[in-house]
């Protein structure tokens, strides 16, 4: 076969990796702060009005979803994309430029967008809070990524597309469609010539707006927190363990199943609301069906490790990824349970919902991105991972954090839901609202501590990554499978 003298180019992948670490610490740092605020309200005033809970919550969600996770997605794309297509970015100056432009525009846009939230520019729609000028930046960034994906595919050596690429392509298309439709808004300044130039008003009103928002909100979870993370695990787990995917056919089937079913499930956010009944029911039913393709992927990953469970003990990266799959199974079972109408009646509006979200994001998304970056680090710098012990410690600390987080939120949510509906012997409501708030104090405290554990783990990760980059022992050549690490 031909042997090109060139190598893979990891420049853009490295840059995005740094961003993932930076935004991870920022976003989750804010998350820990607001978690403590719920338990100790005085913490709301540490930076005056800029640290009020309501101001910081959108910053937390956006920084983690669109800062940390997207950076992780882009970093892994610029790595995995080249490798499974067997083409280097060095081969095309154009794609190299697009990649770098993509990075800088994304970085600057993200900083400005976060700053805008801090000074109260928000549309209020969850995970779509940015005002219209930032939406335009997002669209440009997204188009650049699309050029990078399809450009690289255009010059590939491998004719067939590996399953990971399917998921990256689906991420690109899905988010593009959802984001565009949900952010349709009319800038008021352009129509009237007065008022704040950044202000806009939604194209949709009332129930329609809610419908579009949760069609977006739920599926943004699909296409940011699920689909691209599956893309990662289909590459990194087989590669790190040296085991081919258990059943490639199953991975193809799960893909189409997921694509078809996921979009229908958004209605489960609106159960017992004013949107039409049939849509709420559809949301419930499809959420349950969604278990099938989700578990298809997750089981496929776990079965990939069949006969190789020894690696789970030896290799902390495998630990991270196997636990990620497990949390994926947990949250894809929990979600459908919550969307059953009678369960939803209890769980909706309570802390069980953020609890569910964090199983998925901390356990599945976070762990997968952590593992992916640590797998890439030795390849980026031709050095072994600085410390296996530190990685192990991080794993156990963060796992404990997640367990504290979701167990406390389960109890908090169900307690609150039950208290809201409890009646005394005469049929009057048994508790005033404030009773149902003060009772949550211990759970809020536990949750915040769980979050703090996870955040400390992130610092350990950042340190380990930095030391791998600068001070670890050099290796001769890129390792083929398991990442080398110093004790």
């Amino acid at each position, binding site marked *: 076969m031909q042997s090109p003298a060139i190598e893979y180019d990891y420049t853009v992948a490295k840059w995005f990796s740094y961003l993932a670490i930076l935004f991870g610490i920022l976003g989750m740092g804010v998350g820990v702060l607001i978690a403590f605020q719920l338990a100790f309200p005085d913490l709301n005033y540490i930076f005056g009005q800029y640290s009020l809970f309501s101001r910081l919550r959108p910053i937390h969600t956006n920084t983690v979803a669109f800062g940390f996770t997207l950076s992780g997605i882009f970093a892994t794309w610029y790595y995995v994309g080249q490798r499974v297509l067997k083409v280097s970015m060095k081969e095309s100056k154009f794609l190299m430029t697009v990649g770098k432009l993509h990075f800088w525009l994304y970085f600057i846009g993200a900083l400005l967008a976060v700053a805008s939230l801090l000074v109260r520019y928000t*549309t209020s729609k969850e995970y779509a809070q940015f005002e219209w000028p930032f939406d335009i930046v997002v669209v440009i960034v997204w188009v650049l990524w699309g050029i990078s994906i399809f450009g690289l595919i255009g010059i590939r050596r491998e*004719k067939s597309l590996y399953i990971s690429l399917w998921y990256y392509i689906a991420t690109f298309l899905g988010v593009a469609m959802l984001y565009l439709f949900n952010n349709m808004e009319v800038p008021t300044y352009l129509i009237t010539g007065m008022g704040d130039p950044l202000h806009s008003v939604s194209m949709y*009103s009332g129930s329609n707006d809610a419908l579009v928002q949760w069609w977006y909100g739920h599926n943004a979870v699909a296409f940011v927190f699920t689909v691209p993370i599956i893309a990662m695990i289909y590459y990194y787990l087989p590669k790190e363990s040296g085991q081919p995917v258990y059943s490639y056919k199953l991975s193809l089937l799960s893909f189409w199943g997921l694509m078809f079913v996921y979009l229908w499930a958004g209605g489960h956010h609106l159960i017992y609301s004013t949107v039409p009944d049939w849509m709420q029911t559809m949301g419930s039913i499809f959420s349950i069906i969604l278990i099938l393709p989700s578990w298809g992927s997750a089981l496929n990953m776990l079965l990939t490790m069949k006969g190789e469970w020894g690696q789970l003990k030896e290799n902390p990266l495998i630990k991270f990824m196997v636990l990620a799959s497990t949390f994926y199974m947990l949250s894809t079972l929990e979600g459908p349970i919550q969307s059953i109408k009678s369960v939803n009646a209890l769980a909706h509006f309570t802390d069980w919902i953020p609890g569910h979200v964090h199983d998925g994001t901390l356990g599945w998304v976070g762990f997968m991105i952590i593992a992916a970056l640590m797998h890439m680090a030795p390849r980026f710098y031709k050095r072994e991972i600085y410390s296996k012990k530190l990685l192990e410690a991080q794993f156990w600390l963060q796992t404990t954090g997640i367990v504290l987080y979701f167990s406390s939120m389960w109890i908090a949510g169900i307690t609150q839901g039950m208290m809201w509906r409890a009646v005394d012997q005469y049929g009057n409501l048994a508790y005033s609202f404030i009773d149902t708030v003060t009772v949550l104090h211990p759970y809020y405290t536990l949750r915040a501590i769980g979050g703090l554990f996870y955040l400390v783990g992130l610092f350990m990760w950042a340190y380990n990554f930095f030391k791998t980059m600068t001070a670890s022992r050099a290796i001769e050549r890129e390792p083929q499978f398991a990442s080398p690490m110093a004790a």
Partner: protein
Amino acid sequence: MFGWLERNPFFFAVGVFIVIAFAGLIEIVPDFAQASRPVAGTKPYSLLRLAGRQVYIKDSCNACHSQLIRPFKSETDRYGNYSLSGEYAYDRPFLWGSKRTGPDLHRVGNYRTSDWHANHMWDPTSVVPGSIMPAYKHMFTNVADLETAYAEALTVKKVFNVPYDKDIDGDGKVDVPLGSFEQAKKQALAEALKIAKETKREDLVKMVESGKIPEIVALIAYLNGLK
């Protein structure tokens, strides 16, 4: 047949797109016309209330408070009648929220007063012992942005035919006047003065009398209108 699809990224992408776009198309589009019809009695927001709504959004009140009463006895007992789709016809964006860290506010105007709100926003624990809500003192000094509120009202009037300056209920009177900015501002100041007096806070009354409406007054106007 299928092997072909997977080697042709363009057609593959088209296939994925059709599969994912389908749900949205069927689910969302056909219900648009029906769901956006206002129920009788629903009126557009006056300028002051719209400015208050913008304050509500700016400080993300919706991060902790819902505006959606579900059709359960435990909710109607606590918050009032369950919510109807048509009541939201002039809500752009919708503010249902997704988490009740605090109580629902869809009908808060029925059972809270202006001075309660003012005290509560200044120091929540003074009226609700044990509250974990922070104080929003900056709303007492920030001036509400009437120009942007007017720009929004005019935009929805022009673009979405929201019935400002119209007789909605057929009693021969204009229900929600908007007019020019000067007219609208004059009326907003009059409404604001009434609310400022109800709060029993001298500083707020003085501000309104000097022609500036504090954000808190606009916000209270909005909350009082939630019924």
